């Protein structure tokens, strides 16, 4: 693992919103996140940082420019392929927990692992329990996802994002919906993931405290990265 290769690289990303009026949200964004790097993106509301994150996450494919994930150009790849890349190489944490309420906490964490199909169900379960233990929520594993507190949900979501050992963790306002105590826990967890697991993290946030603990702060303004 050398720090030399970018895990994800964006070149000249341009994005228009067509509805309700034509607006250019991203005006040529260049961005690199290196292997093991913990970066945050900050900027005012409406500067396009979330939009950029969803393009980087491969979920939004309606843009021009070039996107590289792990050295592979993925702009214009078929959706099936992008789904597999998301499953294997990218972990997500959103502002709202986004667990599936019908499933148990453990099952929620296991789902992406089972989808990948690399390990047996038993192995995925063991690994999910390990991640829950790391996040300090293993005692809730058998509960239904809608029966635990907000802070716990976010930690479960982080465990789920890590289940397939992704190259990069992408987070959209991960502390935006949490109280200060839970925010602090999440900040610690991210720092540990970066330091101990040498995983890349890209966090979009308004939270100065969270940003201050990252390796690099990328500032965006009016659809551009501020140099």
């Amino acid at each position, binding site marked *: 693992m050398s720090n030399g290769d970018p895990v994800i690289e964006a070149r000249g990303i341009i994005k228009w919103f067509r509805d309700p009026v034509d607006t250019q949200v991203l005006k040529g964004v260049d961005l690199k996140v290196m292997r093991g790097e913990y970066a945050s993106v900050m900027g005012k509301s409406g500067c396009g940082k*979330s939009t950029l994150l*969803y393009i980087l*996450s491969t*979920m*939004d494919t309606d843009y021009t420019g070039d996107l590289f994930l792990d050295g592979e150009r993925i702009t214009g790849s078929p*959706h*099936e392929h992008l*789904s*597999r890349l*998301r*499953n*294997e190489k990218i972990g*997500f944490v*959103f*502002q*709202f927990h*986004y*667990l*599936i*309420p*019908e*499933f148990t906490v453990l*099952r929620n964490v296991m*789902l*992406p692992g*089972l*989808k*990948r*199909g690399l390990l047996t169900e038993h192995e995925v379960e063991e690994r999910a329990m390990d991640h829950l233990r790391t996040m300090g929520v293993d005692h809730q594993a058998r509960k239904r996802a809608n029966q635990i507190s907000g802070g716990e949900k976010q930690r479960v979501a982080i465990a*789920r994002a890590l289940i*397939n050992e992704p190259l990069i963790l992408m987070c*959209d306002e991960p502390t935006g919906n949490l109280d200060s105590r839970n925010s602090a826990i999440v900040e610690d967890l991210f720092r540990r993931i970066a330091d101990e697991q040498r995983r890349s993290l890209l966090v979009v946030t308004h939270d100065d405290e969270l940003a201050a603990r990252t390796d690099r702060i990328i500032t965006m303004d009016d659809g551009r990265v501020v140099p």
Partner: protein
Amino acid sequence: MGDRLLLSISATLLRARLRQSVVAAVGVAISIGMYIALSGFMNGLNGLLDGLILNRTAHIRIYNEIRPAERQPLEIKQLLERATGRDLTHPFISRIKPKGEPAAVRNALAIIDALRKDPRVDGIAPKVSAQVFFNAGTIEVNGAIQGIEPLEEDRLLHFSDYLLGCTVADLAGSSNGVVLGKGLADNMRVGIGDAVQVSTITGDRFTLKVIGFYQSGMADFDNITCFVTLTTAQNLLAQPRSWITDVQVRLKDLDMAPAVAREYARRFDADAQDIQTANAQFETGSGVRSLISYVVSVVLLLVAGFGIYNILNMMIYEKLDSIAILKATGFSGRDVRVIFINLSMIIGVFGAIAGLLLGGLLAIGIDHIPFRFDALPTITTYPVDHNPRYYLIGVAFALVTTFIAGLFPARKASRVDPVEIIRGK
């Protein structure tokens, strides 16, 4: 692994909406059940009504119709004059009537032998029918006597379905026994064990013993007809063993009857009538009845299909968040589609199984409702056709309907854009 995972996700989503899912499955079950019960009942009735006519008619009947000569001598004279251009002055006789030759099929025993060797023939029942008079007190009642081979007659024409008070074997084993039409017996006020006097047209008198009754439900027939064995009838009429008025033939394939009848008429120089010519109108009636039962069932299944469509659509709306998260974590559009089609198919399969049970129970229930039918004295309950075909069609249709009903919502779900859902919060 992949498909089992998707199935388990479907099952979990379904369990969370158990009540709605059960309602949808019940809808499917009711429509399948009704289809099975209705089809069985309709076709049971159809079979009964068709059988009333078709079972009493041989596939082919070979007989010798008494009629005037086709070419009358006067006609022949005119043809000759036209052909030769000369005036023929020989006297010709016109209006020649049939002569008193018997109405029997010529060479009947040889014909029967030939028919037995024909591979297309399933069975043969020879018959003698003649006019007789029944002596009831001082008056004479007009009647018709039918000499039959009871066992063959039963095999070919379900004779025992119309018998009351005795079996075909009783008739077969009796040399002076007679089975009287129910109406005829009532008119003469005779019961089983009584003796009746029969006179033939030639004036000979016989005493026969009543051993049972025949009821076809057609009054005109029941009021004049009686049955004896073939030999008894030949003895009554003082005719030899070869004297047979009708040779009734059953074919292995009913649809071949018209062609085979034409062939027999040529080959045996006799008249041959096929069942299709004799009963053309009945095909139409039963066709319309089955059409009605199909339309009713299809409507029921369509309603169930709309129910499933509705519930799935609602479920997708409620589950937009879950769909978005599945997609964000690497499930493809195809996976999501499979999940929702699975949902629909689980409802369909459970509904179909319940529908089979319901339909079976309904059919058995209808089969036990008392039903008296004059034309068929042996029938005591409503007729139901328990043909497994209806169960198969019902299940197949249920699965196809639920699949289609699930397809559109599933496609919608697969196209959900996760970014829109996640950003929309």
